[in-house]
């Protein structure tokens, strides 16, 4: 260990005095632990809120509903208000100049613009 790294104490020590079980014992080396942990979606599924009494608030019941205001459409390239949509790529644009630029975009740029809006259709 280089002296400056050691003196800066940036690395977490492997053995810590205040712990009853050390990390190396709890998570032995060599096993991939990524799959052990359930993501939020799986956690919520496992919670099974449907079986609990419905009037108690839970993580899902607090979620916001969709907005009541109709969503305004903004140009994907410039950000101004977009009154038009390109039929080929489904990108929104504000004026003909932007339209020309859209027609000059490459495929992956188009996908990235759509991904900004969460509008990419992925066929698997």
């Amino acid at each position, binding site marked *: 260990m280089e002296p400056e790294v050691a003196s800066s*104490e940036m690395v*977490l020590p492997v053995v810590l005095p205040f712990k009853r079980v050390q990390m190396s014992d709890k998570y032995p080396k060599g096993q991939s632990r990524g799959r052990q*942990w359930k993501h939020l979606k799986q956690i919520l599924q496992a919670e099974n809120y449907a079986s609990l009494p419905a*009037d108690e608030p839970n993580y899902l019941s607090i979620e916001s*509903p969709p907005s*009541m205001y109709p969503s*305004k459409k903004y140009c994907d390239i410039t950000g101004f*208000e977009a009154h038009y949509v390109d039929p080929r*790529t489904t990108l929104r644009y504000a004026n003909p100049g932007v339209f020309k630029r859209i027609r000059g975009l490459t495929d992956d740029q188009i996908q990235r613009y759509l991904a900004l809006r969460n509008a990419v259709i992925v066929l698997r």
Partner: protein
Amino acid sequence: MPPSSSSSFTRPSRQSDYARFSPTTPIVIDNGGSTFRIGWAGESDPRITFRNVVQRPRHKATGDAVTLVGDQDPALMKYFDCTRTSYRSPFDCNVVYQFEIMEYVLDYGFECLGANSEVNHPILMTECICNPLSSRSKMAELLFETYGAPSIAFGVDAIFSYKLNQQYGRCYEDGLTVCSGFSTSHVIPIVQGEPVTKACCRTNIGGFHITDYLKQLLSLKHPQHISNITWEKAEELKMEHCYVAQDFASELQQFQKGNEDAKEKTRCWQLPWVAPTQGEVPSEEELTRRAALKEKQGQRLRDMAAARRSLRITELENELNGLENLSQQLDEVDEHDVSSILAGTKFYSRQEIESNIIRLTQSLRKAKGEPIEVEEKNDASLLEKYPLASVPDEMLTPEQLKEKKKQIFLKTTSEGRLLAKQKRLEEESIRERQNQLDEEKRLENPELYLEQMHARYRELCERVEQRKKPKTNGNHNLLGGVGRGERLTAAQKERMRLLTSAAFDRGKGEDTFGARDEDWQLYKLMSKDNDDDDNSLDEEEAELARVTCRLQANDLSPLPQDIDPNFVPRSDLVPIPGGTTEFQKFRPQTAEDFQIILDVERFKCPEVLFQPNMIGIDQAGLDEMAGISLRRLPMVDDSLKAEMSKSVLVTGGCALLPGLLPRLEAGIRQLRPYLSPLKVVRASDPVLDAWRGASRYANSPHFTLQTISIQDYYEKGESLLRQYQMKYTI
């Protein structure tokens, strides 16, 4: 805008007074999505603060994987190999799910706090509202069993902040707290000092989404600088330059029209850039000096080449003399001694010696610069070498026939080689002649020559591009399919026809595809990448490359200057926007190309908090959430709602955005009845108030009643955790 200096990095320093605190003093932890704060109850500031991320790179020297928590000093990171690692957070949205990472974070937090023996203090930790039970129980298990805490308590950070501000007098007992954090935003109504969890409202938008949106927008706008626009840089830009527009639509209008205000609001980030030194037109002395230098260099090279050549000539001559002596010896001597003499040398027969002599004389002649004799001998030797080739078949035995076949084969190959050599010589001579003509043209009229070269270059460029264009017909279809109303080119039509006819099912027994070899050519025709004009395309590209070289070339010729000092190859140029791809004009790079402009993004990115639809999240924005939360309240008492509207507190990291409060106030006013009272305040310190509120809470004498002790945990376990609900007014 001055170039941003490297962010000053300060590591949390190790505390040394851990032992000073009695075992009844609680440790207060604000486990936030972006930062982790830990400290002692009763103090006004957390002792330790760091970013709630972990990375596990490899130490380059030892090769072990080490754990680094939080941000690190960039100067020391060179000792670690971070290529296959990334920052990992224990959170998924606002719920802790990766407890291994959480353990690393807690380890680091306690270690920096100075813990040496067991963590023998009650722990107050923050969590999200309505935290799923599994997450809460795993956290409890971690704290009790791994760290040995005697008792723990869980609370919601937004409410701690509200309680603190209530004590400061900024808000009242009944109110609304709008907490906009890292990955989520909540609106929690507070009635008589306690939160009404049923009426709480959560949208999955936070500071993370704003930064991410900014990063994506800038990367798309300036794809050539994509490596400079990192996440950390985007956060810096957001904190420094983003603001919330009071009226989004009119701000957009201002920028669209290009008003003076819009110009003032535009900020520009200049990336480090050094102009390529074009150099002024060199003066006369400069030119002559350069010419003399080149001459000297050329002369030196020529001398070296001459020396090498003379060396080689002497070598060859020596060898030749030796061989000639040997052959003379063999002539003089008898037959029997021939073999013994030959055994002493490395040759096996006289013919070998003779052929070697011939070879050497030829190379000698070449080295001396004399023309090579035409190899007429070869024709004769061909016939000699393959005597059987010319003899008709009937006169030979079967073995001789085999011999003959071999000889015919060898003869044709050597003939073929001769022909190829001749063709090459011809081509070379043609090219030589062309080059000479070129040089003459250039010498006699440099200007015209230059023009011609430029014209040729442009022509070739266009032609190459045009060839590549018709493939797609200007289409950039997403999935390669044809949209509505698309016209197909002839090539595309043909391809479709092939595909459909090939796929047509003719029934059993009728399909004879593949019986003939030519059938498989169909796939070649069908393939989209097929380039029939491959050959001519390559030719043109090769010529393009040659012309580029010539234009750029730095000659050793007597001309004092380069052919064209102002020529810049296409790749270094920047397209002038506004033109179509067919007729683009180019210009050399300037300082402006290395500037990143923030104009609309400044207020567009924080707008995501109010219009989550902009990034595709179909939920209500901050102002609407307040209305939804008020509606969800179980009691229908309007006067209470009016009371609550007078005490709306905005807290959380995003509350620091300038312009958020007036915008939020205007938004909520739209939802409330006309002329009903409304007052929106910001927390005194939106970032630290949660921890401070929790610290004060833990310091109060009745805190112990709100904790879960380790004995209770072992007795009752999960059911206790499920029912656990902290009371905030104590």
